[in-house]
């Protein structure tokens, strides 16, 4: 599970400043999340690992450009990864492998803005989830199918727990983002 990975903002700032000792921490925080995002956006495409690798290299190539004004570290990293997926889609279309129907522009996939916004939204959501209590976090992960359901729990009890966890998630979200 990638959601318990710590926020890399401070390490990313150190790396941008030229502090090479922050590399390992940034790598450990970013690598699983970039891979998870790429998998999610490419829906199991066989080229997913290659694109994730490319995205990660791009993140580190641009790490020196990171500044606090660009916002928190993870949305910035995932924005680059999302852009890389978008570029892969464009390349694929140009090679003639992807859907290209000029009559239906929506068949060309989401826009760059939508892709980056989606990545940033996911990163914000992960930040909120990390701030929830462990039990709520586990319940929501299980409800989303990202973690196993607790054994021996009645479906009605589980539903109730999901409902409560969702309420707390909504409250945490509105506390942070209005």
């Amino acid at each position, binding site marked *: 599970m990638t959601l318990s990975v710590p926020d890399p903002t401070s390490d990313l700032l150190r790396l941008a400043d*030229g502090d090479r000792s922050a590399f390992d921490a940034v790598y450990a925080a970013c690598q699983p999340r970039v891979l998870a995002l790429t998998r999610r956006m490419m829906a199991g495409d066989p080229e997913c690992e290659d694109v994730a*690798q490319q995205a990660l290299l791009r993140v*580190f190539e641009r790490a020196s450009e990171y500044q606090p004004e660009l916002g928190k570290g993870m949305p910035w990293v995932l924005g680059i990864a999302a852009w890389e997926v978008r570029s892969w889609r464009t390349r694929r279309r140009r090679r003639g492998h992807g859907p290209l129907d000029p009559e239906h522009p929506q068949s060309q996939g989401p826009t760059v803005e939508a892709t980056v916004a989606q990545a940033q939204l996911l990163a914000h959501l992960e930040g909120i989830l990390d701030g929830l209590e462990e039990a709520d976090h586990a319940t929501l992960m299980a409800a989303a199918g990202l973690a196993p359901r607790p054994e021996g729990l009645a479906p009605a009890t589980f539903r109730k727990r999901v409902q409560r966890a969702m309420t707390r998630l909504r409250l945490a979200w509105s506390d942070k983002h209005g």
Partner: protein
Amino acid sequence: MDELKRQAQAAYERGRRRLGLRQALLVLPVGALAIWRGSALEQGPIALGVFLMVAAFAWRGGALGRAVWPGLLGGTVAFGLPLLATAGGLAPVGCGATAGCLSACIAGGVGAGIAIGRLAGPRSSLLAALAIAGGLAALSCLPLGASALIAAGAAAGVSAPVTRWLIPART
């Protein structure tokens, strides 16, 4: 270490080199102006030295990297004032230890020192910023005479720490 991590490290270093080159490119207009007003043989190696120094400091990062901007801005002051004095006829080339030459370079040095002392935060290397500024000052002070350059260096070397002590930088 796995292959991807090694590649990521190489990508990071590639990004650092690019950053170093990008910041060093700012030296080029100053160097070109100095060469145009002086000679490629005298000013060329100094400009190249400052270019390499800025690229290396920016690539290395940390206190050295943070010194690049204050050094470049202070250096532009130290380069500009003697150049203006020369253009205005106040300090002819090779005037050495005459009042006009010395005052032009001292003013440039004090200006550079104040700029560096004000802009270089406590986590920046003052020495590195002074080295960059000194290199840029040499581009316009050296043709006036070695004593003028020494005077500029001394002025910057004194005024930078004094300014930093009197008015601490915000960062």
